């Protein structure tokens, strides 16, 4: 491969332009690629779209599965889902979980990322500790969280040690605190993820930009809020979308720590759908209707966030350019 070859390659965007001899000739020269994309397309698009369509179909029936009769119920499943107070509790929990975890993730991730881009001893040790919850399965770590939050667990003994026995309580077993436990475990899982993305994003910021800010007399926090965070906006938008999807499908930790209880106080859509699919008095039609509702929410929210994110991005861009010119 010579240098000239590579230079020719740099005009690879020309085929988009219509007309002109070269793109046409190249198009004819290119071998067909349909069979190359077919395996990926069949597995992912095939299986996923099949599931969604089948789900939509099932959602109009009442059906315990297997050989039992499928009773058509029209929109009955949707109506009873929307009338089910557990669904509204789940939605409320999903929103609370999303908002709290997202804020903690961005704040914690930024703190750790900024600190590890500074001169710090044992940076790698801190990093591994923060990222362990990202790589180890929530299902594997759930027993550890139960150990920490149960009545004779670590949190209560720490409170006792500091003479705060008045605050000791059965965190998991009471409906006022079970959601708090699940949400805090979610924060524990999410900070490392935010840290990795924000750390990588910070590494891409032009050091001159920060230097310019410092020359203008900006302190650490000023640099962080006026230069670094605005540049990270695309990452923060991605984190918001990812977090929302995580909250929508949350299953592992609520199921293994609180079982969605007590009295559905820490119920999420994931645990609801699972319970409806796997319990002995299941109604797969109802589970499908819930799945379709989750899907509609997921699509609507990601589109909304993506559009909002982009809008803001274009609005802040010119200002950032000025900063770069200084």
């Amino acid at each position, binding site marked *: 491969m010579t240098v000239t*070859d*590579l230079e020719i390659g740099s005009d690879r965007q020309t085929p988009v332009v219509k007309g002109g001899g070269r793109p046409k000739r190249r198009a004819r020269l290119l*071998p067909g690629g349909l069979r190359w994309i077919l395996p990926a397309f069949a597995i992912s698009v095939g299986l996923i779209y099949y599931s969604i369509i089948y789900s939509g179909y099932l959602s109009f029936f009442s059906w315990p599965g297997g050989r039992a009769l499928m009773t058509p119920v029209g929109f009955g499943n949707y109506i009873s889902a929307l009338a089910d107070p557990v669904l509204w509790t789940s939605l409320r929990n999903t929103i609370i979980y999303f908002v709290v975890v997202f804020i903690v993730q961005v704040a914690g991730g930024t703190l750790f990322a900024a600190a590890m881009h500074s001169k710090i001893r044992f940076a790698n040790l801190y990093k591994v500790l923060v990222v362990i919850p990202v790589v180890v399965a929530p299902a594997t770590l759930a027993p550890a969280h139960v150990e*920490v939050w149960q009545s004779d667990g670590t949190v209560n003994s720490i409170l006792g040690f500091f003479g705060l026995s008045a605050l000791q309580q059965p965190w998991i077993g009471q409906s006022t605190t079970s959601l708090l436990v699940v949400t805090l475990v979610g924060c524990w899982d999410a900070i490392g993820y935010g840290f990795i993305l924000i750390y990588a994003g910070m590494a891409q910021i032009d050091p001159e930009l920060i230097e310019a800010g410092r020359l203008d007399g900006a302190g650490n926090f000023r640099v962080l809020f006026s230069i670094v965070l605005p540049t990270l906006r695309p990452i923060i938008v991605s984190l918001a979308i990812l977090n929302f*999807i995580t909250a929508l499908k949350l299953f592992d930790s609520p199921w293994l720590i609180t079982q969605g209880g007590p009295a559905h106080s820490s119920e999420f859509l994931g645990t609801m759908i*699972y319970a409806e699919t796997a319990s002995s008095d299941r109604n797969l039609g109802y589970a499908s209707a819930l799945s379709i509702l989750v899907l509609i929410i997921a699509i609507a929210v990601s589109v909304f966030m993506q559009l909002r994110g982009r809008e803001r991005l274009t609005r802040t861009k010119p200002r950032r350019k000025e900063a770069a010119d200084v």
Partner: protein
Amino acid sequence: MFETRSRRARITLQLVLTVAVVPFVIPLIAMLQTSFEGQGWGNYLAVVQVPGFPKFFLNTIIIAVASIVIVYVATLAAAFGFSKLRVRGKELYFWLMMAALTLPEVVLIAPLYTTAVKLGLLGTYWSVILPIAALQIPFTVLIARGYVDGIPDAMFEAARIDGASTWRVFWSILVPLSRPMAVALMVLVLIYAWNSYLLPKVFLIDDGMGVVTQLPEFFRRQYNDDTPKILAASVITAIPTIIAYIALQRQFERGMAAGAIK
């Protein structure tokens, strides 16, 4: 990022960081400490000697390896097709695939459970491998296509002019050049498959087909809430992932970051 000119500022930052990391250490210490309660190492010995214990690891390894192979082959071929070959209406196919990018897996379980029962696939490895692959492919194709777009077309043209077949071009140019990206993506698929819990729980209902994430529940059922042993099992399950992460740190972080920075 933070400028610490004075010694005091440096110590303050170090201190803040240490305090911030304490909540991360507490569950890990609680887990280790409790896992040694009672019989000490005996807990670990008892866990390892439980009949069927190696089977949990074997099942997870089979599922992870099969998912990685399927995702790798399908992703590289698709990235090649989308980026360097002629496909009529390719952007439509691409969009159909990307629409599934943020699909919550839980919406798949009711229809797939029904289908698996009908096809007799319930309780087989395929019932977990295929959904894992299906859910990972949109993401890996998005990243891989972006990466392959960055390889100059001229390289492929030159090989073709020299008479190489499409297959040969794929094998001798694309596969070696995309290795760094592919490794990063496969580390992510490995972690995802290793940690998957909902899909095996729904589809692998038989104890003999359990995966590592089901070990704590298995012990809870078998040994009546013998907490130290449950936690010993958790520690044993967590160690391979932690070692894998430390060994493949850079690839893992690159793969994760690739998704969001795009």
